[in-house]
């Protein structure tokens, strides 16, 4: 089965490593994906504040395009995952929205398919591929690397059906299957502030600080994320946050990068070098081969 792949704008920009590592992982696990032809921006949370109706139409264009290629979409970016799911829900629930969207899509020669499923990589990896298969393919065990699994908010809430919304464990289990040790991380679904760091810096820095210090306090050596904005926030502002609170340095990677590492993806192919806070020293210390 081939999945339709929806990268989203961030994965072509700051989230490049997410795409690289995800595609590497999927390749090794023999999961076939095909990028959605001419996909457009989903609108994220920003467009929703401008004009809701239009944002549903824009997001629905992607659903319609994808349904020509597959019955399932993989959407790694948390915001895209949320928006696509929300669009589907709202079209089903509100006839007015359905009418507006159907007509809009019709005007560009597309038809809306209700039955396409929007999935997150965590869901596909855990439920379609399975922990057993992944564990078998591990070439570079992560030797008890202490990881704080950070889910963020929009993958888990409010539309996640594949994991417990208050206490998700899908990432935990995937990482453990690769030999990592997942530490106690009560902040794992606490919002990182999203774009607030840009618009209201002091607020953003506080939120980032708690996430960093909470991970370090529980002995984490690395934080694994599943959202490009979370990764960006936690990775880019450790110095600034350190100035405001106290210095903390901990590498922040995508969970797919750890998976790619463990599954033996070729060095350099999963973007480890793209992190601002380097993970290489931690890996060297634990004698986990990354190159």
């Amino acid at each position, binding site marked *: 089965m081939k999945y339709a792949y929806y990268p989203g704008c961030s994965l072509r920009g700051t989230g490049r490593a997410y795409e690289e590592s995800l595609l590497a992982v999927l390749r090794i696990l023999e999961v076939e994906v095909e990028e959605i032809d001419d996909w457009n921006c989903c609108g994220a949370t920003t467009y929703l504040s401008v004009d809701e109706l239009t944002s549903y139409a824009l997001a629905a264009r992607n659903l319609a395009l994808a349904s020509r290629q597959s019955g399932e979409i993989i959407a790694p970016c948390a915001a895209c995952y949320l928006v696509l799911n929300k669009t589907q829900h709202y079209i089903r629930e509100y006839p007015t929205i359905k009418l507006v969207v159907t007509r809009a899509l019709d005007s560009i020669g597309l038809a809306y398919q209700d039955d396409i499923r929007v999935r997150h990589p965590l869901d596909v990896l855990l439920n379609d591929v399975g922990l057993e298969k992944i564990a078998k393919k591990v070439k570079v065990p992560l030797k008890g690397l202490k990881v704080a699994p950070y889910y963020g908010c929009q993958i888990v809430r409010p539309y996640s059906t594949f994991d417990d919304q*208050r*206490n998700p464990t899908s990432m935990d289990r995937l990482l453990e299957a690769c030999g990592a040790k997942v530490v106690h991380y*009560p*902040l794992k679904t606490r919002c990182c502030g999203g774009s607030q760091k840009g618009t209201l810096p002091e607020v953003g820095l506080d939120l980032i600080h*708690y996430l960093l*210090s909470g991970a370090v*306090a529980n002995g984490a050596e690395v934080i694994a994320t599943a959202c490009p904005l979370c990764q960006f926030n936690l990775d880019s502002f450790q110095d600034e946050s350190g100035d405001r609170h106290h210095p903390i340095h901990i590498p922040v990677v995508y969970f797919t990068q750890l998976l790619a590492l463990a599954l033996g993806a070729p060095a350099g192919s999963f973007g480890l070098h793209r992190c601002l806070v380097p993970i290489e020293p931690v890996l060297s210390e634990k004698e986990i081969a990354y190159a």
Partner: protein
Amino acid sequence: MPEDIGFSGQETPRVGVYICHCGTNIAAVIDVKALADYAGQLPGVVVSREYKYMCSDPGQALIETDIDDHELNRIVVASCSPLLHEPTFRRSLNRAGLNPFLLQMVNIREHVSWVHLDKRAATEKAQDLVRAAVRRVFLHKPLEKRRVSINPNVLVVGGGIAGIHAALTLADAGKQVYLVEREPTIGGHMAQFDKTFPTLDCAACILTPKMTTVGSHPNIRLWSYSEVTKVEGYVGNYKVQVKRKPRYINEDLCIGCQECITACVYKEGKTPDEFNVGLSKRKPVYLPFPQAVPQKVVIDRDTCIEFKSGKCKKTCIEACGDRLAIDFTQKDIFEEIEIGTIIVATGFQTFAPERNPFYGYKRYPNVYTSLEVERLVNASGPTAGEIVLRDGSKPGSVGIIHCVGSRDINTNRWCSKVCCMYSLKLAHLIKERTGAEVFNFYIDMRTPGKGYEEFYDRLLDEGVHFVRGRVAEVSDWTAHPSEQGKLVIRAEDTLAGFVRRIPVDMVVLAVGLEPQKDAQQVRRLFNMSCSSEGWFLERHPKLAPVSTFTEGVFIAGACQGPKDIPDSVAQAGAAAAEALALIDSKTVELEPYTASVIEDECSGCKSCIPVCPYQAVTFLEHEKKAHINEVLCKGCGTCVASCPSGSIRQNFFEDQEIFEEIEGVLAHA
């Protein structure tokens, strides 16, 4: 014309029609005079009147006088819902010497005047309904209520405070009571508490005298460690099967010395102790708590080595010595008893707070449920009454979180009624015993009972912090140096208007009450209904809180809905009184709306048998016909409708009667 329609009586029909004004309830919308006039010219109607209040004494007298004066043989009363006054008017007919079932009521209030605004249309509708009733009543047959006798023995299921009180009340009244309790001891949850609100009475001190009385009462057969397995029969005549599980102890010989427990090959307990809510461990042979009734030990076959391998040294038998009370050969005993009434008092269970992971139960060791803290506080509990953390140290600060699992669409919608009070009680006890700083996090402070608000008053004086705000999270991540090593409770202090983070050593979750895990199986056993939340259903929430829709089965205590001890005891007394009323009336009348099978027409297809909710329909193997037990039948009509050959009929709802009513309504169409 009456000749075309048919008449079930001897002579011609002589119908009296009575239209009630019901003050202005009916008369304001329906033209009652016109209606009475209309009814007066219907075929078969001899007398037609309208009156202000038909249910009043003069109103009823009107009917009775007319029956006499005009030799009426059928009556139609057009007024309110028959649920209200059908019995009233039936009694009128009875007094006047007419069979009470020769009455048909028409609802022109709830069905017409209370739901329509257009007066003309309403009056027309009322005319249609009255016409239909007049045609139907021609076909009514005189019916007799059946009487059955009542066995004076009573079964009480559940030995908590409600079951105990009901059993004692009935036993003192001279009735033979069977008290069946699932656990090895009676006492229920109340036995686990330390002090009770609002008086701070010691629970054991007020409960154990009642328990010992139960144990020694000549009229009470106490079967502990037993369960009801089968219930058959009908009101006054139930046959019940009780499974008595083996304790492997001969109850007559055991004196409760507990030497066997000391001598057990297990030096220490390994099984989580159920009575102490898992806070301590017990051995396979144990006594649930020191004041257990019956004061006999029990051996748990699931954890006893002798049952696993057959090769235990059995030091217990040695320690028992000459008493010879231990008997590993015991098996389940099935007792068959005959009783007339049943009181179900099976109690509640507490909400499992793992369902709300953000409160950290089982994730952080020092998060406790209220029931666990009750055991800590109790002098015969696992810590001898010391309130300590898991490492044995005393807490310097404690947070008590109200409404855990309650008032929440995501878990249980209802308010569990007792948690505010017991949280105040625990706050008091914790502060008294440990001197810790105590914080209660609540949404509303619900203290409705007698002495409850005064109890709250008392707490306010004691320096407990009251923070109004539903707790969002209990966690160990820190945002301030003072939070290191503590559990942080984050909640909005809604009265102050800002968010607070309060670090504490110990968190107590005031868990709500919910129906027992097996409530559905239990209620089916006794043929009871339950509410949408799973609580056993009372016949009427205000006027019949302890009876159920099954005659002869009563409910009492928390199994009917969350409640405190005073209310449980009150309900238990009420249920006992209602059972006594039934028993002392010696016989009970059953409504005659029963169905019966016309044997000649029955094809033996068995379609009717599984549809009966009351198991009243059986199949006679020899005759190959269905048979309906008149006494069990409740007249729901399901079997009548299910019969493909139409060979089941029902009193008061015969096919012809219904067809006449339909024809009457549609006559002008």
